[in-house]
């Protein structure tokens, strides 16, 4: 039971940190892509949308190569640590959060930003209010990013190593217990994974309703 609790805590810490980092990077990037028109924007949009389908195992492999002893970032000593898993999962969640934020900003009424400028908004006020008006899509992007990283196995297994008490998370534990033939335990861990995802998504979706309408 203590082990299950430890696995759940590591899962929340790794996926939570990765989602937070991806949101901190992805929301401003997506908002800028949605608001501004510049050369190369089309290509970046296609790259972002392609990134939404990145196979976690490929991300894991690339991060592994960078962090391995002979890799460019090998000196950091991050391989088979939570930091390596957070790095890989941030890369997985970033395009989802940035791409969906961009799409939700683009879907706003075209005159919204002109109206703000006409009322005297500075560029930073305009960006902040635009993002608030697009919050449903932005929250959905965080939900999608979190869903992608809490359920992935490939990257976590490759760069984390599934070490008991250190880098074992719920998804990699399910794989391990299935291989051992402990189907009952694997199913229980899978249920716990779903329950965690459900609780986090419930909290995130509460943020979608405007403050003044929340009950």
């Amino acid at each position: 039971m203590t082990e299950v609790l430890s696995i759940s805590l590591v899962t929340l810490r790794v996926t939570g940190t990765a989602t937070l980092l991806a949101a901190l990077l992805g929301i401003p990037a997506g908002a800028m892509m949605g608001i501004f028109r510049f050369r190369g924007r089309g290509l970046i949009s296609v790259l972002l949308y392609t990134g939404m389908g990145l196979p976690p195992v490929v991300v894991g492999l690339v991060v592994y190569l960078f962090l391995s002893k002979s890799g460019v970032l090998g000196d950091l000593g991050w391989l088979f640590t939570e930091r390596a898993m957070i790095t890989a999962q941030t890369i997985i969640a970033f395009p989802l959060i940035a791409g969906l934020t961009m799409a939700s900003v683009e879907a706003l009424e075209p005159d919204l930003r002109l109206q703000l400028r006409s009322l005297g908004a500075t560029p930073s006020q305009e960006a902040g209010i635009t993002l608030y008006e697009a919050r449903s899509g932005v929250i959905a992007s965080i939900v999608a990013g979190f869903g992608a990283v809490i359920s992935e196995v490939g990257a976590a297994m490759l760069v984390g190593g599934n070490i008991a008490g250190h880098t074992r998370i719920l998804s990699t534990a399910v794989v391990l217990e299935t291989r051992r033939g402990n189907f009952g335990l694997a199913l229980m861990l899978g249920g716990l994974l779903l329950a965690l995802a459900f609780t986090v998504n419930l909290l995130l979706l509460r943020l979608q309703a405007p403050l003044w309408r929340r009950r």
Partner: protein
Amino acid sequence: MSTNPIYRVQGLRKGYGRGWELDIPELEIPEGCLYSILGPNGAGKSTLLRVLNLIEAVDIGRIEFKGKEVLAPASTRDRLEITMVFQRPVMFTGTVWHNLTLGLRLRHLKPGSHLGDLVDQLDLGGLLQAPASEISGGELQRVALARALACEPGVLLLDEPTSNLDPYNTALIEHIIKKAAQAKAMTIILVTQNVFQARRLADQAAILIDGKILEQGEAGRVFRKPENPQTAAFLSGELIFKQKGDTDEYLLTQEN
């Protein structure tokens, strides 16, 4: 032309596709007057208004606002004295009060007694705590007008503020426009297709057709004795669309 124009526009061109959406060699708008821009649908009236709000880019041309050359689009500081009521005003998430005070909050100002007077005059008292997304079309235009006037602008731009409104809302909005024009040293630029409304309200008028100002001057003179035949046809409602040769292009003309 006034010797003291608030706007002086020279050689303005804004393009799209194959033609110029706006092509205005010269336009001067006197300070403190109610200036009406009339024209049919698609004439470029809303685009011109956004250019005058300094929020829309132009391809070529020089714009002077209060004697100072400004960029289009201009910096926030250069356009703080101008507010605009859009044809379809955008309401932001929150209550009517939240929307009414938005321009003030963006300027880091607190609502004063002036806003209370506006709320009374525009009959918005019962709506202040209502979600802005749930108000009717007439209420929306009244809130948008109050929101623009709350900032006490030097220039108020109105883009067809009473289109599709019932007589009560139209009369209320026209009353406030007239009052603002008389009480304040405010320049009001009213874009409309409604010749009767322009006649009721405007001191000066310009007729914009196909992106070109065909006639401008003292409103009474423009409406009574238009010098341009196309202007005369538009004002008398005789303007028609005519196919250009065998092409799929159409021109506005008064000829049959």
